[in-house]
């Protein structure tokens, strides 16, 4: 039987005890955990990775790690915070993989641009230029989440959020988007509370600068009362 749990509901001590019981009730509790947290965690992962399928893959890894690591979860943080931590680390791994792929893409691109490009690729690849290195090149859609923006300023903010870079990006996503407390974010990312504050402020200010630049560029718009309207 499935139990309708809220996202915050999984932090209940009795639910955690059931998760750790190691019996059939625990297995059912874990499926309820997945159902209750899947949407929020998928949203978090997707805001970093963009692609839905890839985000789903990463999220599966997150739940797998959670299932294996549940015994070691000490309960010092909320269960949802712990899940966000796992998601955060998996996202970082995935982005690191992408960066490696991008480096390969750049190397291959540089080689192809050079005089003896294809030969260089063949040498680097140990033979045929079309195989291993090129097959590792991942072309992904880095477009941000689709946003339902009610006005132009909001769309720009959403675009600015998607363009934020670490570490401010992580702090901002966890604090302002996911609503974790400053203490939780500090513990998750291994930062001091002051550092979280500074990073968060910088991220917000970066967003504002991004939006203002576009407002200035657009020129014909005048912002008014939270809405961008034609002057």
């Amino acid at each position, binding site marked *: 039987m499935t139990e309708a749990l809220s996202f915050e509901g999984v932090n209940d001590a009795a639910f955690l005890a059931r998760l750790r019981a190691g019996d059939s009730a625990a*297995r*059912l509790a*874990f*499926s309820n955990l*997945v*159902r209750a947290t*899947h*949407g929020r965690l*998928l*949203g978090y992962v*997707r*805001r970093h990775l963009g692609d839905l399928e890839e985000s*789903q893959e990463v*999220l*599966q890894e997150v*739940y*797998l790690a959670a*299932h294996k690591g549940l015994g070691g979860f000490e309960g010092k943080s909320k269960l949802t915070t712990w899940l966000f931590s796992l998601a955060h680390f998996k996202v970082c791994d995935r982005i690191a993989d992408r960066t490696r792929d991008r480096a390969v893409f750049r190397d291959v691109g540089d080689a192809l641009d050079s005089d003896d490009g294809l030969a260089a690729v063949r040498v680097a690849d140990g033979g045929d230029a079309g195989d291993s290195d090129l097959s590792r090149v991942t072309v992904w859609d880095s477009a941000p*989440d*689709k*946003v*339902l*923006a*009610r006005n132009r*300023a*909001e769309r720009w*903010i*959403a675009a*600015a*959020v998607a363009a934020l870079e670490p570490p401010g990006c992580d702090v901002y996503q966890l604090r*302002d*988007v996911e*609503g974790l407390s400053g203490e939780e974010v500090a513990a998750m990312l291994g930062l001091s509370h002051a550092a979280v*504050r500074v990073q*968060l*402020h910088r*991220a*917000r*200010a970066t*967003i*504002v600068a991004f*939006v*203002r630049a576009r*407002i200035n560029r657009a020129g014909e718009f005048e*912002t008014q009362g*939270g809405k961008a309207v034609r002057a």
Partner: protein
Amino acid sequence: MNIVAARFIYPCDQIPDFAYDYLEHRLPVTTALRFRTHLKFCKGCAEFVRLYRMAADPVQFLEETPAPPELIERTLEFLENELGKESDIR
């Protein structure tokens, strides 16, 4: 900005530094008062704070695409396969 008013309120370059604490309601009363007074006189800073407030509360306009229910089922199926039949979590 009105020159007389400017004597009693903060200069524009200090406004961003106060924005974080202002939103957290952590500014001392007199500082908050001077901060708000500045915003009344200065359209540019008022816009900065308005956008800053929007940036600090993006959930209202960041679309949270509901995950298709089949994705949850796929996740459960994946876990079931990975963890073995004895860990049938469904």
